[in-house]
Structure formats: structure tokens, C-alpha cells
């Protein structure tokens, strides 16, 4: 998704102003003219100036406000990308409950399926890979990955 530079410039200006406004309210160090807000204020001002520059360049260049790459026009490809983003977010929210072996396997199977790989071999690959990774990380490297309902079994 490509936004027009004038839109990006506008967003950067808003973001920079918000940073300046928020950081200005941070307390100063005792007996000093500076504090925890000094550095972020400088960054905020730089962002506002950069936003103005990018916005002005965008206005000079013209063009559409938003452009989608050709891949984003295919329903199947959008489904893959959404499974990646939303699926990972859902897995993160329920990671301790569902566990890495089950949650990870479901996510990988869904990704393979939306990529057109629906043969049982891909299901086997997804489950086998996640279980192998879980055993390698939690068994060999002692990473406490949650096993979810499979706790005590693997």
C-alpha cells in the first residue's frame, strides 16, 4: 500500500506535534534546564520538519493518494497476508493457553492452505516442523515455550 507523499507528510507532522506536546510535559531534572523530554522534543521537531519537506515534495510531484501493489488485488493473496498478520496476533493473545505446538501448527497449516498448498504432505510438514522446533528450543536450549494443553506430553 503506497500512500501519497503529501498524506505521509501530514501524518508525520501530526505525529511529530504529538511527540513534542507529550514530551514537553515531562518533568525537568533538578537544577537543570533539560530532562527526559529534551531528546524526544528534538526528535519531534525533526519529524515535523521532515514531514513538511516530504509533504511539499509530494504536492509538487502529484499522483494518486493511494496505490495498491498488484498482489493486493488477489483475494487469495490478501487471505494469505491476513492469515499471517491476524493469525499471529491471535496466537500472541492466546499463546499461553493454546501453546506453541498446537497454535503454531494451526497457523502454519492455514498459511500453507491459503498459499495453495493443501495436500496432506503440507499439513505433515507444518505439524512436524513446529513440533521439532518446540522440542529443539524447549528441550535442547531450555527455552520455556508454552506447550498449552500438551503440557507434560511433549
Amino acid at each position, binding site marked *: 500500500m503506497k500512500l501519497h507523499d503529501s498524506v*505521509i507528510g501530514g501524518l508525520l507532522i501530526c505525529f511529530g506535534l504529538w511527540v513534542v506536546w507529550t514530551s514537553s510535559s515531562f518533568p525537568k531534572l533538578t537544577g*537543570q534546564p533539560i530532562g*527526559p523530554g529534551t531528546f*524526544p522534543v528534538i526528535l519531534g521537531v*525533526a519529524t515535523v520538519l521532515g514531514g513538511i519537506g516530504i509533504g511539499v515534495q509530494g504536492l509538487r510531484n502529484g499522483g494518486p493518494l493511494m496505490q495498491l501493489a498488484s498482489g493486493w488485488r488477489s483475494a487469495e493473496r490478501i487471505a*494469505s497476508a491476513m492469515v499471517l498478520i491476524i493469525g499471529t496476533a491471535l496466537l*500472541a493473545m492466546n499463546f499461553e493457553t493454546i501453546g506453541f505446538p498446537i497454535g503454531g501448527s494451526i497457523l*502454519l497449516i492455514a498459511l500453507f492452505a*491459503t498459499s495453495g498448498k493443501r495436500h496432506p504432505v503440507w499439513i505433515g510438514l507444518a505439524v512436524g516442523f513446529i513440533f521439532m522446533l518446540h522440542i529443539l528450543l524447549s528441550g535442547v536450549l531450555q527455552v520455556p515455550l508454552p506447550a498449552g494443553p500438551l503440557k507434560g506430553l511433549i
Partner: protein
Amino acid sequence: MLTHIADALPLVLTWHMAAVILASSAFGLFVGAVPGLSATMATAMLVPITFFMDPVPAIAAIVTTAAMAIFASDIPAALVRIPGTAASAAYIGDLNALMRKGQVTRALGISVTASAIGGIFGSLVLMVAAPQLAIISLNFTSDEYFFLALLGLSAAVMLGTGSILKSLMSLAFGLMIASIGMDTTSGYPRYTFGMTSLLDGVAFVPALIGMFAIPELIRTFVNRDVVAPVAPVGNPLRMFTGVGRLLWRSKVNLLRGSGIGTIIGILPGAGSDIGSWISYAVSKRFSKTPEEYGKGSQTGLVEACAANNSALSGAYVPAMVFGIPGDSITAIVIGVLYVKGLNPGPMVFLTSGDMIMAIFLVFLIANLLIVPLGLLAIALSSQVLRVSKLTLAPLILGFCIAGSYSIDSSASGIVIMLVLGVFAYLMEENGFPVAPAILGIVMGLLVERNFVTSLIKADGSILGFFDRPIAVGLACLVLVVWITPVVLWWNRRRARVSA
């Protein structure tokens, strides 16, 4: 130095290290040989595993993976005309022209040998120069460190490709991410929105994994590039036939490529891709047959391949001595060093000189191993190149999720990975490079701490930054880096107007 080498040898010459080096070599060669998977991504994926290793094997794994991946990226460049990393893009035309002439085996032979020699040259410079620079930098105060960090960040913005303004905004974004959490000077919480998980700041490793891996995965699912037909490699054992004679004839190119690569690598913010492009351009400029460049020039190939791997070693000089990354890979290494308690800077050469020398020795070993392992990788390349990125993408995601969680055993790591990853995808789609943001995240703390310390010392006066001669010299260098693009732009504009 010899004492440190003697102390370092027992740390390197162990079966455990041999296993780590071989395993990470195989990983680096595989990732480098798959078109589109970068050396930086390979390194980022390795970080969660290194988290559970001792310091020397951890850094050895990263160093070996990166060296192998940078070399291996020449394999898809030669066989399917898709560079594995940006560093190979400079001479892809020559590799492909040699393939069309039926000399792909020779092209890969040149690549593997020049890469190894360049890497060894860079490693030797690293071993000699880094400890000397560390002694000098022991006298540095917050003023010098602030300007050094500023120089690194400025070079990253100015030397990168694309819009300088967008690179600058990317850097500002990275510095803002680094300022999330408790302020180190006052302990005041900034931008945490009441979330206790953000009090310690944004976890570096999930941020890194997300910003390098997630955009690549989204692009893989959305673009679905087809696997290109692979050219036959021929007998890999004939790869070195005539290469020795060519290298002897091109010894000036080999030396110049290694030298330029090392110097570019040492410059904070510039890595092997820039080293490779500049070295190739210099080679063409001084060649008696510049018309051959891009059409199968073997001397150009020698020079740029040597620059590739020497820059990789050179980038570790500012990383180890000042804690300022030379490129994205050393940015990752600095993060790992902090996690391991080996805080990069001049003091680490005094307190852990044996460990630092052991890491340098690994550089030498990794670059020596490029030849035999590279030969094996080339022999197996026709199989590796048939693996599509679409097949690997879900598996890489599984690796990223496990890695992001494992850093502090919290699902917040996965959320950080995802949010910053999607944001990095949108940044790249809109022409904002991600590398400056990564440098900003890594160096944010260093820049702000030294900036605030210097300001406190000078009672809030900015003039206090210029009290010491080295600081003034570094400030002048920063000014040169800032002014050069403006002067170049002005000259181009004048030339256009007068035309």
C-alpha cells in the same frame, strides 16, 4: 596482542565451537543461496538461539552465518540472476554474462576465492586496528561519543539509497522507539501508556526479527514470485581451474577491493552492499577495458567480491571499539553483546580481551571455510534454488514467533515483532528504508545518554560539546557528511539549469 591470541585459542579450538561454526555455516549458506532471503534476516533469525549460548559461540554463530550468507548470495545471482543480498547486485550483470558464455563454474570459482581472500584481509585489519583504536578511544568522553554516534547515524542516512529525507525520518522513528520506557537519567517512564511490559523499553530482538522478517514474509505471500529456471553448474571441482592465474594477474584489483571494502566497512553506517558497489565503480574507473564491465568482466568480479566480505569484517571495528554499528548485521551483534554482558567499547578490550580476540579468530576461520564449504554449497545449489520462498515463508514465521517469545518468555515479544514488522512493511512500500530505523533503535540509548551527559556537564549549553579537540574534529566530520549531499545536489541542479 599475542598474549590475547594465546588466551583466545583455547576458547576457539573446541569441538563445541567446531559444531557451532559448521552448523551456522550450513545455515548461512542455505539462507544466502535462497533468493530474497538476506544475510541480515539470517542473522536476525539466529539471535534467539544465540541468546542461550555462551558469548563467544553466540557471536561466532552470527559471524559465520553472515560471512557465508554474503558469499552464498552470489550463487543465485549467477544461476538465476536474482541476487541473494544487495551486495551481489553490483556485479550481477557480469555473473550472468559469464553464465551465458558457459563459464558459470569459473564465475563462482572467482567469487568464492575472492570472497575468502577479501574476508581474510578484513579480518587481519580488524585484529590489528581494533585494539589500537580501543587504546586511543579510552580517552573519549561523552562529547566524543555523542559526535561519533551522530557520525554513524548521519553516514547511515547519507550513504543509503533513496530519499535522504525519508531515511532521516526512518532514523527518527528508530530513535523514538528507543526512547520508549524508563529514561536512563531520571527513571521517568516515557510513552509506556501504563503498560508495565514497556517500562524496560521495546525489546530489541523481537523488534529486529519483526522489522527484517515480517516485511519479507508479507511480500512473499502477496507477490508470489515464480521460481526461476536454474542454470546447470557443471563439475564444481573444475571451479578453480585458471582462477589462481587470474587472481595473480588481478592482484591489484584484489588488494584494492579488499582495502576499499575494509575502509567502507569501518565507516559507521556503511556495509558490504555499499562497499561492493563503490569497489565495482572504482574498478571500472581504473580499468583498461571498462566496456567489459557488466558483460562478464572477471577483474570487476574479483574486486567487488573481495570488497563484499572485507567490508563485513571492517564493520566490526566501530562496533567493537565504540559500540557503533557499521551495518545492520553489526547492529544485531551489538544487541547480542549487550545481552551477553560484553558491552562493546574500549573497556571490553581490557576486561575481556581474550573473548574479543576469540571472536576475531572466528572471522579468520569462517573466511577460510568459505572455500571448502562454498564448494559444497555450489554443488548443492541446483537443489536449494528450486525451493520456493512461498514454501519456506510459513516455516520462517514459526521460527520468528518462537524466537520473539523466547527472549523474555513473554507473548509481548510476539506483539512487538508483529506490530513493528507490519510498520516496517508499510515503511518500505512507501520508500522509507528500514536500516536507519534499526540503527536508531540500537544506538538510541547511546546517543541520548551521551547527549544528556554532555548537556548536564555544560549546564545546558551546547557550546560545551566543542571544548575538546577530538570532539571538534568529529563534529567537523559530521558537518562534512551533512553538507556533501547538499553540495552535490546543488551542483547537479546548476548543471541541469545550465543545460
